[in-house]
């Protein structure tokens, strides 16, 4: 299974949530709003690039707007593999938490 850093995991989940129009700025805004902390562009687009090269994300070009000087956006979405990796991480976390909770109740 491919490994993910926490940051990458969060970015993947953000993209899932955004459903559509998940491009760099949108993802960054989402993360900012989510965590309340400031997020730099570089800290997002480098993992994005890496994950795309690793096959966890795929992209397609979106619309070009004036505010972008007429340049198109790159819209990211999860690949099957990306979704699978996310699910694996979630499953593992869920399992561990479940065990913790049941042992707490008995203990």
């Amino acid at each position: 299974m491919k490994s993910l850093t926490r940051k990458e995991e969060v970015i993947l989940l953000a993209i899932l949530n955004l459903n559509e129009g998940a491009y760099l700025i949108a993802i960054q805004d989402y993360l900012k709003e989510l965590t309340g902390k400031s997020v730099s562009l570089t800290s997002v687009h480098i993992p994005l690039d890496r994950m795309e090269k690793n096959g966890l994300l795929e992209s397609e070009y979106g619309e070009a707007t004036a505010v972008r000087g007429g340049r198109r956006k790159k819209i990211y979405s999860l690949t099957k593999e990306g979704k699978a990796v996310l699910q694996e991480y979630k499953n593992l976390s869920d399992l561990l938490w479940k065990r913790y909770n049941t042992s707490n109740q008995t203990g």
Partner: protein
Amino acid sequence: MIQENKPNKILTKLFELTVTKENRENLTGDYEEMFHRIVDDKSRLVANLWFLFQILKLALLSFVDSILWSSTLFKNYLKTSTRILLKQKQFSIINVTGLAIGLASCILLMLWVTDEYTYDGFHQNRNSIYRVVTEHIGNDTYSRNTPYPMAEVIKQDVPEIEEFVRVRQQKQLLKHDDKIFNNWKSIATDKSIFKVFTFPFLKGNPETALDDMKSIVLTSEKATILFGVENPLNKMVEVDGELLQVTGVMEKIPNNSTLDFDYIRPLESVKGITKNQAFIWNWWAFESYVKLHDGADKNKVDEKISDVLVVNRTGVENTLNTFLEPFNELHLYNLEGGGQIRYVVMFSIVALLILIIACINFVNLSTARSSERTKEIGIRKVVGSTRFEIGKQFLTESMVITVAAFIIAIVVAQLSIPWFNELVFKQLSIPYTNLDFILSIVLIILITGTLAGLYPALVLSNFNPVNILKGNLTINFGKKNRAGRNRSNFRKTLVIIQFALSVGIIILTLMIQKQIDFMQDSDQGYNTDNLLFFHLPGKLANQTGAIQNQLRESLLITGVSSSGYDNAGGKIEWEGMTASKERLDFLGGQIRYMMIDSNYLSMMDVGIVSGRAFSNNFPSDYNNSWMINEELVKQLDLKDPIGKSLNIIGAKGTIVGVYNNMHFGFKELAEPQALYLSPKVSWDNFNYLFVRIAPENTSEAIIFIESVWKSLGTDIPFEYKFLDDMINEQYTPEIQMTKIFNAFTIFAIFISGIGLFGLSAFVISQKVKEVGIRKVLGANVYNIINTLSKEFLIWVIIANIIAWPLSYYVTVKWLENYPYKVNFDLWVLLFSALASILIALFSMSYQLRRIMKVNPVECIKYE
């Protein structure tokens, strides 16, 4: 609004450059979007600043990334290189060893050169310090000693002079707490020495340390020897019977210093200065140094002081010219010409030559090997390697060898340092922490590795892979056929040059050895065997007669005699003289004269050429006779000297005999000398005692002599020297040179052998197929070997022909330094030719055997 607030055009361009092609469009767009937000939120300025910051961040990240990536790639090349080199063990070892030894020699030589070149470099004022020197016009001799008053006088008269320092070297007896030292170097000097030269103090104050007549300043090493860890300041030390107080301790003087001493006394403590003798302009007993003001013109000073000696002395012709000699040229350059600089240049050239030879060899061997890997290259290319990558591969390989060779070289050099230091009488060490050293090492590694790797990297990577895989084993340069032949001519030339150098060095080494043997074996003109002598200072000299009698009592002693000092210089006149004033002045400087006792001539076994020796049968000999040597007869141009009258420094006498020149070694011409039996100058006394010992019991004899010495009641330690040892010491530089040349010879032979070895390997591997076919066709292997050997031997002969005239010329030029020299021996030429042929045969033999073993089936298989 959006149109007006575009981000700075330059920044945008920069950004686009920093980002990878794939993401250029979208990222630039993203960042511009963010830019506008910041403009709205803060200001345009802030936005541009933010943009710039982002660019820098990205640039840094991508730079770090590329380094990490290339280091991974590099690691891979490294692995491959090491594997390949280990597979070719034999070649790699020879290659690395050759280069390592070459580099090690180069390092050692450069250490020596640097030490010499930076002599006296620690003096901060060195560029404005000069020594005062006097030239004797007409006979090219120079006096570096000056009279006491001179420095002061010229400082008064010449405003360019800021400061002067006078130095007198002396031998004194230093005592402290039962420890006696009489061979420590003492100097007496002005306290301005600390202002002019850079001798930092560890303890005490340089401004006042030499104020008191009874003060002494020690160097820190000697202070430690005397006082251990205690503070030496204000402690007492006895020098020549006087109690002195230590007023200062100096830092250790660096090894490469012309001014070398162990302790300092104030100048005024020199006996004779207080007796008004100082004001005689004829007592040339001090070295004078001056420091000029910054920017002063040395030539103007030279003009001003040029006749200071003539003006201040009476009755002297205008043949003395005083001028300044730059301090920072003292060590390397002799005013008379030549000097240490010759050796510095020579060794630098040799170091460079060795480096070049080693590198050439290295390149030769590497390329010889790499041409055998054409198949591997072909496959690599087919599999998708770019030419660039293949080139990088070869480059890495040669770099690996170069670095490995360097590491070995440093280790070898470090281990050889003790031997080398002993050889050259220095205390050199490898300056691992010196920036210049590290930089030059890195530079040489880069240059050597790159050059060696360049040839295969460029040429071999260029091959058409299909061609190779089809089985064209021989390197077919295609349209570069001519170039191919040029390349092998180049290699041949290199090997020939290497052999020529080896032959040259062999010749030189043999000739130097011959010259040394000649000097050591030639008859000195008297008997120097088993002869020791020692100095009787001051009052002890009065007891010469008694000492001689005591010594004669032992059977271990076969002869005793005494002499005074070999005095130098004085006015000379003789019966029938017709010399010019200049000639007389010159002779006056050259002449030597010495008092001897009646045993001297017979004990020393001096040959008498004409006339007779001094004899008790002629009582007038005692006061009125001279014996002169052949050289003096020649210089005075005397026909029939016997019976003629001779007057030296006012002492008159008749010449009764002429004796053989008494040589003190053969590095210098014998001097014109006259001998006499009774004192002619005020200090004439029997200060030297010569003792001939029976050869079988040398150590017993010495113990006996020492007991006689001790019975004289002096606490001066007994010191003696054997005359033949002293003469041999003169030859130390030549013997040193021989040892160094011997080392070079071995190295040169080794390298040439390797060179030929590699070249023959290359040539033979080319011919393997040809040989195989010939064998099948029934050719005699020996014929083939013959042809090949002949070709190699022709190269060796060419090398000899090149080397002979060059080494002849160099040898003759070098021999010019010696007044007594050997003739060039033609046998040496033949011998070295023979040696080179043997070396060639030896290194070829291995490769030639390969031919014998060639199985024709193997090579034809490839078709």
